[in-house]
Structures are given as structure tokens and as C-alpha cells.
């Protein structure tokens, strides 16, 4: 089976058949790259069983999957550092040119390596952190699903592939934040994150589709190839704002920042992985990826730098206010994301390199520090920095890990954090005014984050031990393996700048900058370099703040209480407002008065039938008086008598039967004019309508007769006549146009030879338009189900409460 649509769309279709249609780099590459994104999902399926059988070893076993993916990424280093992007993929919906396609360049490789590398340690850590938890298997499952989504996101080429993975990260994040779903706070945080990031996802989809329309490309690689086109387009601003809104919501940029600290309701491995190292960086990834396509304009520069700067300051300052270790880290994560967005907004070579370096540095130290916070919580039972003291003896390994990461976060020399800060300061030391302002913002933000890094690395471990809920104890190997390795890497990476320049910075920088970037980052302490002075000011400010951390915190608390309003409260107000609005609209439209529903429905029908005909002045001319035989006139007469009886009937039952008579007469007319199928159906429908209407009448306990006030009768009569006139006129218009008979001819020509049926009506129903019929019968089935549910719902409570007395009343009535 070569290229039929079914064979191709049944992705992942990891059989040789798809491999045969190989792309640029050999037949197996498609499968290998697709497997990178899919393997975690397969592992997620198996995770609950592995957890059940392997028990405490489950984390180590499952960590093989991300470790193998990491190794695969390492094998791509060769081609990628030569600036060759690897492209691979499988067809998904070939009719629309939508491919399940992937694209690996420097930027995706850095992200992919971070996701799989840190993911390995996070999975190991989860094994220790949630040891013995009844839902540990489910937790692993969610984590691996998230990992697959995130890998798919950073590797995706086609924008629809990108969007699907983007939304999957939101959904898995929702599941993970709400993992402890018995707590209200966790549920609220999960829903909040889903609404904010999911809403952003919709904006992103709209933006990406607009970009597709502008550039004519539906893949990222295609858009990158036509970089510079979008900026010239008239729709640029809207498309850019939509993409940026999606990225900002995901990366928790001001004013969407409030969901991230709340997301700390999730178990600590989730905070370490999703809400610092990976998922929240998806927005940063997208902005970096889109920089060549959307960047380089004034609007891009100002939006990214201003909002990034506000987020940086907000995150840095609010972090100082917190006492909970995880909350402190969460706010500094906000700050770091703001910093990255700001750097991408600048878009110069130095800024881009600074962003890539800081991205790696931040993932390493923040992931490690979150794990440290979790280990402290695990070992002592609290995360309150005002209570924790003197843990250095009880938790020596954790202390060392915390020191290493805190060192990198503070940006002290030889750590990768230092290199990152130097590079970003270098980008801003041109001396002109907006740069100086942003430099000041960056220095203050970095100082705040440095304080938090030092506080977490030093405060809980130094001083005299204080009582904590548990007696402090060191975590197991699985708990400290991650922090130690990541912490050491954060320091060591700073020593191998040549490797870093060649393998990480130049390729990734080139992807963002859209031009060759020759990274020359070196560990140097040159006092003639203005950047070093920015670092020195940062340290000075940081140490001063560190010294007065408690006073600063109390002062900030008072300010916060003085303001009293938070974005979080604003979110609640907006949500409740939405619910109240929905309630009002529902009350307005769903007032529960059936006769008004019907009146409104038919009035709208009448207007929509008549208004276009009158406005466009296309009323039909009166048809000629029909020439009919006496028996045809007889059928018409019976229909008319039926109608007159309906209107004048004294009892409802008579009216229903009279309506049936009118319907039968119409069926006879159909029969006389040669539409046996139609007339057949009409007979049956009329019969059943009468039966069902009569049954409904007996259920509703209505009065025997239908009394209406004069005004009501005039009102209803007017609407009825208007609808009747509207449909009549519409049919006359249709009959006076020239009918396009091509379909009729096609059906007549093909019905018997191809579809083996002489009854064209039936052949249309079950063959030509079978999919419509399939939809219709599904609706009929659903309607039956709905009516059944409605009647049961009404019948049950009454008969359950007072079966006897109601029956008697019915009889009396």
C-alpha cells in the first residue's frame, strides 16, 4: 500500500512502510525523531505497572527513558553545531499539508537536552520524594506525559504539531498542579493555570494561523526561511501581539504572572521541572524561535523589554517578601523569565547569547534549588525560612548541593550564572539612555534574585538548629542525586567555555539571532570591562539586601497590605464576574416559559425569511392559477378544512387530530404529484406526531381547551401567518429560479450502474450522502436519549414521593 491517505494518517505508524518514504537524512531519522517525543508517552502508559512491581526502584527504571533521549540528543550535536538543522517527520493530514514534523537546530537541541537531562534527575527524585505515595504510578505517568509534550513542543516544525504539544503541556501541567486534588487550593491553582495558559494557547493558535496566511508557510522552518516577510505585512502587529500573548501567558509574564506562584501547590518535583526548568520556558522558547520571524521592530523591542522588565522587578521584589522556600523560588522564577524575555526583546548578539547562557544556568540552579527545597521539606516537615536553621549537620549533602546552586544563582565567578550575567550586562553597556535604564532594572532584579539564592543556600543550614515538625534527616540518594549533579554541572560548565561556545551558544544563538553568531564567552575578570562593574554593583546591592533580608521582608509585607489588591484577587473577581454574567444571560433567555420560547423562535424565523426578500426586493411574481383535477382539488380542500378545524377547535385533542388530517391531505397531494417516498414518510410522520402529541397532552395535565386572550391570539396568529407567508414566498422564489439540474443528472446517471439502486432518494440517503445520514441518525438517537432522561427526571421524584395521592388526583382531574 503506497500512498493512500489512511496508511499515512495512522501515525505513529512506526513500520518500515513510512521509513521507505525517507526524507533528507536517511530513512530511520523520521522514526527516531518521532520516538523522542513519543517514547515518554509510551513510558507513561507503563509507569503505573512499573511502579507497582518495582516499588522504590521505579524512579530509577523510568529515568532510563529520559536518559536515553538525552543520549540521542547528544548524537545530534555534530550536525547541529555545523548549523545544519535536522528535519524529519511523518505525514499527518496530507490533504492540508499538515505534517507531524520535527526540526532540530541549536535552539531546539539546547531545550531538548535540558528537558531530557533535567527530566532524568527529576524522575529519579520523584521516586524518592513520593516514595510510598498511593498514586505514585499516576504521578510518574503524568510527569512522563508532560515530558513527551514538552519535547514535542520544542522539536515541532509544523505549527499545528507545535500547537498540539503546546496545549498538551498545559493539560499535563493542569493534572500535575491538581495532583493533590483533595485540597481546594490545589484544585483552584490547577484551574487557574489551565485557564491562563490555555487561553494564551488560543491566542497563539490565532497568531500562528495569521502568520501562516502572511508568509504562506505552515512550518516554523518555512517561516524562518522567509524571515522578514511578516514584519512588512499590514497584519504584523495583530499577529505579533497574539503570538506574544500566548507566550506571555505560558511564561507567566506580567500581567499573566499570578498563576505561577499558585502553581506551587503541585508536589515539589513538579515545581522543579515544569514551573522552573521547562514548561514556563516554553513561552521563552517560542519568542526566541519567532525572533527572526517577528522581531527587529520597534513594537517587538518595546513590548518584550518593558513587560519582561516589569516581570523581572515584580518577581525579584515579591520573592523577598515570601517566607516559604518554594514561594521564594517561584517568584525568582518569574523574575528570571522576565529577564529572558527582556534579553530576547533586545535581540543583539550579546543579548541573545546572554539569554541562552542564562537559560541553561537558570534551569540548572533553579531545578536543583527546588529539589533542595523539597528535600528540606521532606526531611524537616516545613519550608518556612524563618523556622529553618542549622541543618548543615543533619543534611550535609543537601547543604553542599544548595551551596553550589546558590553560588550559580548569585552569579559568582566561575559558575555558569556568572558568565550569563556578564554576557547580558555586556549587551547593555552601550551607554545610551534606554540601555542604561534597562541595565538598572536588570541589576536590581539580579540583586533580588541573588539574595534569594543566598538565603536558600545559607539560611536553613547555618546557625543554631531550631525545632522543626520532624527531626531533620538527610534525604536518600534519589533525593540528593539531582541537586548535586545539577549543582556541580552549573559550576563546571563555567570552566569549559570553549565547548560551551562551540556546541551550545553559537548554534542556539544563530537560531535566535538569524545569522551566524560566533560566541566568545570566556571566564575573565577584567576590571576595564564595564560589564564587570555592573556585576560588582549587583553583588554589593545583593549583599546589602541579604544583610537586611528580614527588615526588607517586613517592609514589603506592610506595603503589600497597604495596596491590598493582587492580580490573583483580580483573577477571582473576573471569574466570578463571568459566572454572574452567565447567570444573568441565562435568566434573561431561559425564563422557562415555553410559549414565549416558541413565539421568539417563530418570530425570528419569520423575520429571517421575509426580511432578505423584502430588502433585496426580490419578491416573486404571483404564480398562475393552478389547473388541477377535481380529486386533486379534493385533497387541497381536505387540507384547508383540517386547518380551519385546528384554529377553531374547542378541545386540544380535536386540534391535534385535525392537524393530522391536514398533514394526511398534504401527503395525498405529494402522492398525486409523483413523490411516493415523500408521501410515504409524510403519512408515517403525521401518524406518529398525532400519537406522540396526544401522549404528551396526557402527561402535561393541561386544560382540555386552549383559551387565549384576544391580544395573545392576535399576536400568535400574526407570527403564524408571517411564518407561513415567509415559507410560501421563499418556495415561490425558489421555483421561479432556474434549477441547476447537474446534481440530479449525476444521480440519475450513476444511481443504478454504480450504486445499484433505482430509488434515487434512498441511494442518496444511504450512499451518496451517507455521512450526513450518519450524523442525522446520531442526532435522532441522542434526542431519544435526551427525551428519555428528561421524562425520567420529571417522573421519578413525583412518583417516588407520593405515588398514591398523585394518582388519585390524576383520576379526579
Amino acid at each position, binding site marked *: 500500500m503506497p500512498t493512500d491517505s489512511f496508511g499515512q494518517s495512522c501515525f505513529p505508524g512506526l513500520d518500515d512502510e513510512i521509513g521507505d518514504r525517507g526524507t533528507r537524512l536517511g530513512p530511520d531519522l523520521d522514526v527516531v525523531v518521532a520516538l523522542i517525543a513519543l517514547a515518554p508517552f509510551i513510558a507513561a502508559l507503563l509507569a503505573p505497572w512499573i511502579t507497582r512491581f518495582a516499588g522504590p526502584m521505579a524512579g530509577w527504571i523510568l529515568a532510563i527513558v529520559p536518559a536515553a533521549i538525552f543520549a540521542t540528543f547528544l548524537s545530534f550535536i555534530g550536525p547541529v553545531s555545523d548549523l545544519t538543522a535536522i528535519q524529519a517527520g511523518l505525514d499527518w493530514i496530507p490533504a492540508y499539508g499538515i505534517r507531524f514534523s520535527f526540526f532540530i537546530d541549536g535552539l531546539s537541541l539546547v531545550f531538548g537536552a535540558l528537558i531530557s537531562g533535567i527530566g532524568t534527575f527529576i524522575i529519579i527524585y520523584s521516586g524518592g520524594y513520593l516514595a510510598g505515595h498511593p498514586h505514585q504510578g499516576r504521578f510518574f505517568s503524568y510527569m512522563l506525559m508532560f515530558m513527551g509534550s514538552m519535547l514535542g513542543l520544542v522539536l515541532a516544525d509544523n505549527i499545528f504539531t507545535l500547537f498540539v504539544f503546546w496545549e498538551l503541556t498545559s493539560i499535563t501541567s493542569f493534572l500535575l498542579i491538581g495532583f493533590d486534588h483533595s485540597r481546594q487550593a490545589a484544585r483552584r491553582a490547577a484551574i487557574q493555570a489551565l485557564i491562563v495558559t490555555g487561553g494564551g494557547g488560543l491566542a497563539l493558535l490565532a497568531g500562528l494561523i495569521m502568520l501562516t496566511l502572511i508568509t504562506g508557510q505552515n512550518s516554523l522552518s518555512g517561516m524562518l526561511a522567509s524571515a522578514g516577510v511578516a514584519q512588512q505585512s499590514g497584519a504584523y502587529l495583530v499577529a505579533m501581539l497574539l503570538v506574544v500573548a500566548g507566550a506571555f501567558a505560558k511564561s507567566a509574564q506580567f500581567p499573566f504572572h499570578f498563576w505561577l506562584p499558585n502553581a506551587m501547590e503541585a508536589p515539589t518535583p513538579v515545581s522543579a521541572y515544569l514551573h522552573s526548568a521547562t514548561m514556563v520556558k516554553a513561552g521563552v522558547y517560542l519568542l526566541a524561535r519567532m525572533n527572526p520571524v517577528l522581531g527587529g521592530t520597534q513594537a517587538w523591542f518595546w513590548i518584550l523589554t518593558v513587560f519582561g522588565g516589569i516581570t523581572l522587578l515584580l518577581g525579584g521584589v515579591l520573592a523577598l517578601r515570601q517566607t516559604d522556600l518554594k514561594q521564594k523560588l517561584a517568584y525568582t522564577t518569574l523574575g528570571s523569565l522576565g529577564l529572558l524575555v527582556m534579553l530576547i526583546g533586545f535581540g543583539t548578539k550579546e543579548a541573545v547569547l546572554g539569554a541562552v547562557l542564562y537559560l541553561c544556568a537558570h534551569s540548572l540552579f533553579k531545578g536543583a534549588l527546588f529539589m533542595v527545597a523539597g528535600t528540606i521539606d521532606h526531611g524537616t516537615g516545613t519550608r518556612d525560612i524563618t523556622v529553618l536553621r542549622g541543618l548543615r549537620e543533619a543534611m550535609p549533602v543537601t547543604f553542599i548541593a544548595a551551596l553550589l546552586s546558590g553560588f550559580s544563582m548569585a552569579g559568582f565567578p566561575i559558575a555558569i550564572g556568572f558568565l550569563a550575567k556578564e554576557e547580558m550586562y555586556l549587551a547593555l553597556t552601550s551607554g545610551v539612555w534606554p540601555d542604561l535604564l534597562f541595565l538598572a532594572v536588570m541589576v536590581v532584579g539580579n540583586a533580588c534574585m541573588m539574595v534569594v539564592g543566598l538565603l536558600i543556600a545559607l539560611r536553613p543550614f547555618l546557625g543554631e538548629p531550631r525545632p522543626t515538625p520532624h527531626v531533620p534527616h538527610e534525604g536518600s540518594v534519589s533525593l540528593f542525586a539531582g541537586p548535586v549533579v545539577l549543582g556541580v554541572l552549573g559550576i563546571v560548565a563555567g570552566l569549559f567555555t570553549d565547548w560551551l561556545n562551540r556546541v551550545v551558544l553559537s548554534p542556539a544563538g544563530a537560531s535566535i539571532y538569524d545569522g551566524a553568531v560566533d560566541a566568545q564567552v570566556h571566564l575573565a575578570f577584567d576590571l576595564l570591562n564595564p560589564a564587570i562593574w555592573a556585576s560588582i554593583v549587583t553583588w554589593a546591592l545583593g549583599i546589602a539586601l541579604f544583610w537586611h533580608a528580614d527588615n526588607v521582608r517586613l517592609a514589603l509585607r506592610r506595603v503589600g497590605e497597604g495596596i491590598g489588591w493582587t492580580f490573583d484577587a483580580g483573577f477571582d473577581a473576573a471569574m466570578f464576574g463571568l459566572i454572574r454574567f452567565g447567570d444573568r444571560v441565562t435568566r434573561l433567555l431561559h425564563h422557562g416559559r415555553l410559549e414565549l420560547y416558541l413565539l421568539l423562535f417563530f418570530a425570528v424565523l419569520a423575520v429571517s425569511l421575509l426580511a432578505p426578500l423584502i430588502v433585496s426586493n426580490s419578491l416573486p411574481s404571483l404564480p398562475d392559477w393552478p389547473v388541477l383535477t377535481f380529486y386533486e382539488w379534493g385533497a387541497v380542500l381536505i387540507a384547508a378544512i383540517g386547518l380551519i378545524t385546528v384554529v377553531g377547535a374547542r378541545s386540544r385533542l380535536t386540534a391535534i387530530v385535525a392537524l393530522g388530517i391536514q398533514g394526511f391531505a398534504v401527503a395525498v397531494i405529494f402522492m398525486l404529484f409523483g413523490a411516493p417516498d415523500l408521501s410515504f414518510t409524510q403519512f408515517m410522520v403525521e401518524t406518529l406526531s398525532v400519537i406522540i402529541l396526544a401522549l404528551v397532552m396526557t402527561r402535561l395535565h393541561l386544560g382540555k381547551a386552549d383559551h387565549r386572550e384576544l391580544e395573545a391570539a392576535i399576536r400568535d396568529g400574526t407570527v403564524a401567518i408571517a411564518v407561513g407567508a415567509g415559507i410560501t414566498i421563499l418556495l415561490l422564489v425558489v421555483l421561479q429560479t432556474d434549477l441547476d439540474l447537474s446534481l440530479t443528472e449525476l444521480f440519475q446517471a450513476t444511481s443504478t450502474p454504480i450504486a445499484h439502486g433505482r430509488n434515487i432518494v434512498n441511494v442518496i440517503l444511504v450512499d451518496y450522502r451517507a455521512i450526513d445520514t450518519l450524523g442525522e441518525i446520531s442526532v435522532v438517537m441522542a434526542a431519544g436519549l435526551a427525551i428519555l432522561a428528561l421524562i425520567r427526571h420529571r*417522573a421519578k421524584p413525583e412518583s417516588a414521593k407520593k405515588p398514591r395521592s398523585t394518582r388519585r388526583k390524576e383520576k379526579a382531574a
Partner: protein
Amino acid sequence: MNTVIFRTAAPALSALMLVFSVFVMLRGHNEPGGGFIGGLIGASGIAIYSISAGAAATRRALRVHPITLAGLGVVLAAIAGFVSLATEVPFLTGLWWIFEFEGAEIALSTPLLFDIGVYAVVVGAISTIALALDGEEGDD
């Protein structure tokens, strides 16, 4: 309405209508008829039985809940579509299997299966509505 004559005639009439409904459904492809009309006739037959003998007796006579029949119909129609997929033609393409049996030409096809599905949905859904209105579920 519930006279002795009606009560006596109704079961025979219903049986006749049900048989006729199947006949109408099967001849549908070449003569006036088809699953939809057949289903309506079948539902009318069930409704007549229900009026004469009561909803509870009708439910017992039907053995399965009519909504099950409706659900089965949708499933059958969908299967008719998926059979086409299995032979690598687009969803719902009509497949025919025509052969001689005892001197008569028999034509089996996926549109026939589809039409049987339509019939089951219409009979099932309308009987569900009629029976639910006629008597409460808990009566039997």
C-alpha cells in the same frame, strides 16, 4: 378508544406492521421505502401495541430497552462505514456483494447494513419517546 375490537386487533396489526416495516426497509433501494420510512412504520406498530396493551406490556414484549436498539443502529451504520476503511476506500464507500442463491439474485452491501442501522435508530428512538410518554419506567 380502548375498545375490545381495538384491543383484539392491535397485536395482529402491530405484528403485520412490523413485518411490513422490514419489507419496506429492504425494498427501499429500488422501490419507494428504505430504513427511515420502514423505521417509522415499525415505530407506529409498536405505538399501536403500546396504546392497546400499555407501556409496561410493550416493554416486556420488546425485551430490550428501545434506546438500546437506537444505539445499536448508530453502531451498525458506523460499522458499515468502517468496513469500507478496511478495504482502503474512503469512509462509507458502498461495497457490494452480489451472488446467486437458489436461482435468485441476492445483493448484500454496506449500504444495506447502513439502512438497517437507520431503521434501528428510528424505531428505537421513536419507540423510546412514545413509551416513555405512555407510562413511567418504573411501572414494569
